[in-house]
């Protein structure tokens, strides 16, 4: 019974954090709630005896991905949301309808399936040593491919995000002016401390 209570608390925590992450106006708040939701998911993994995955989940999602998205928000001035600007897309009603359809298409088969009555083995554990051995034997090729993928993603991300200003140096003597062409193309969203 305590197992179920813990699980229900985890579910409430994770889902409310996830809903907050897609509902809040300020993208920084969204990214922080997303970190909470990922941490809640890690707790659910702990309940399934997958220690290593739970810790890896926290390490990667909370420590890297949410920080990365916060950086992206700040670098794209995402926090300067006007109080009246819409944060949901014009077709959000259609989106919600499709979402409900998808949720039904997932949940109805799950709850009508016979797999629900499967009894879990009393003990199931994946010690780190076993995971390591498997990675180096059965899953050696996928692991190599993963290494290649991560390397290329790293290089690709750096190349894409790298500033291409040096090439444009000949066009104008003031590259910073060409990057932000005029005041009117960029709405005056700069939050003024004195007027808040």
């Amino acid at each position, binding site marked *: 019974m305590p197992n179920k209570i813990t699980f229900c608390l985890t579910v409430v925590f994770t889902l409310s954090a996830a809903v907050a992450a897609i509902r809040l106006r300020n993208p*920084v708040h969204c990214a922080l709630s997303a970190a909470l939701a990922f941490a809640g998911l890690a707790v659910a993994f702990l309940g399934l005896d997958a*220690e*290593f995955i739970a*810790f890896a989940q926290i*390490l990667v999602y909370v420590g890297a991905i949410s*920080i990365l998205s916060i950086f992206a928000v700040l670098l794209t001035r995402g926090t300067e949301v006007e109080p009246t600007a819409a944060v949901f897309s014009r077709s959000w009603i259609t989106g919600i309808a499709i979402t409900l359809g998808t949720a039904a298409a997932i949940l109805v088969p799950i709850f009508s399936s016979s797999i629900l009555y499967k009894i879990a083995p009393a003990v199931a554990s994946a010690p*780190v040593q076993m995971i390591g051995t498997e990675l180096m034997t059965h899953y050696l090729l996928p692991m190599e491919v993963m290494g290649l993928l991560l390397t290329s993603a790293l290089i690709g991300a750096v190349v894409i995000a790298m500033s291409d200003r040096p090439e444009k140096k000949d066009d104008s003597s003031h590259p910073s002016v060409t990057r932000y062409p005029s005041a009117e193309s960029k709405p005056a969203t700069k939050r003024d401390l004195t007027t808040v």
Partner: protein
Amino acid sequence: MNSLDQIFVTLKQWLLSYVPTDFQPVGSALLSIVAIIAVFGTAFALTTILERKGLGRIQNRPGPNRVGPCGFLQPMADAVKMLTKEDIVPYAADKVLHYLAPIVLTVPIWLAFAVLPFGRNMSAIELDASIVFFFAVGSASELAVFMAGWSSHNKYSLIGAMRGIAQMISYEVPLVLSTVPVLMLSGTLNLNEIVNAQSGFSFGVGQWNVFTPWGAAGFLLFMIAATAESNRAPFDLPEGESEIIAGFLTEYSGFKYALFFLGEYLGLFAVTGLAVTLFLGGWNAPLAFLNVVPSWLWFFAKFGALIAVFIWARGTVPRLRFDQLLNFAWKFIVPLTLVNIAVAGIWYFSSDHLAYAVRWLICAGIFLGFYELLGRFLSLKRAPRTYRYAE
């Protein structure tokens, strides 16, 4: 002697025998929590006063010496001052995040102590992947630093937070990579088993990882990365007071400031404890005949010695510039940790073919050769330093 070694374990079992069986897991956890908070809370108070006194001695002044005998009650006075100060929240601040940031920094750090083995049979929880747990809970501090800096709505806070995050992400890579040789050679991620793997003695000297070439190099790299990870001088740019007031702490006062202070010291204690466990043999005695001394005393002796090194470094090394800091991490420390992993592999596979001394010299030679080459390569484009004002 064994009874003195296990005195805390026995004490815990004796106390637990008064707890009903149903509540024994909870009781055990509570006892461990109380012990950890008491010990490291005291260590925090002691470290603040010793650090101020040590820095004073380095800078040729007495340091705090007014409150209590030799000034040793100064932490109490500081605590009273902190707690009675007004708690100011800036008008433009994001109130919720401003409130949550010190909590997010301080609470997860306590969790990291749960997996450290403080003595024989003295770790609060036994986890299969305890070192991954340690780094996972440590990753919350980056979020806390960002929350503190961004929610204050102050440009110095934001600059400090961005510096802090960039620094912590950059140095987390070498911090984790420098532990990899230890994990490879011990064949486990469990800190207790890593300590057990170092418990042997050869010629009466403990078989600590730091006495091998990859261990010595890894220890130095780990300590450098740990200094940066805990935002201490010479890597204290996030709160460099001569440049950006106090960085992300600028808008904090009173109890919240004290919590940040506590969190930073606890982070330092946690990585120091990890360094002792991974490289300095954990609770093992350095010499075989010293085994009579209780194991927890050895752990805390090594711990104190490493803290003293941190204080010494803070008093002697000047602060880096930010580009120097990041270049140092990505161009120098990270390649060296990668080479160190290769050296550990060579060490492992040469054990059947070569004598110990030969093996030691070859591995050390490879690492030092790469160190020299990398250093020369990085300083190729630089002209010799010229001093304009000092001759």
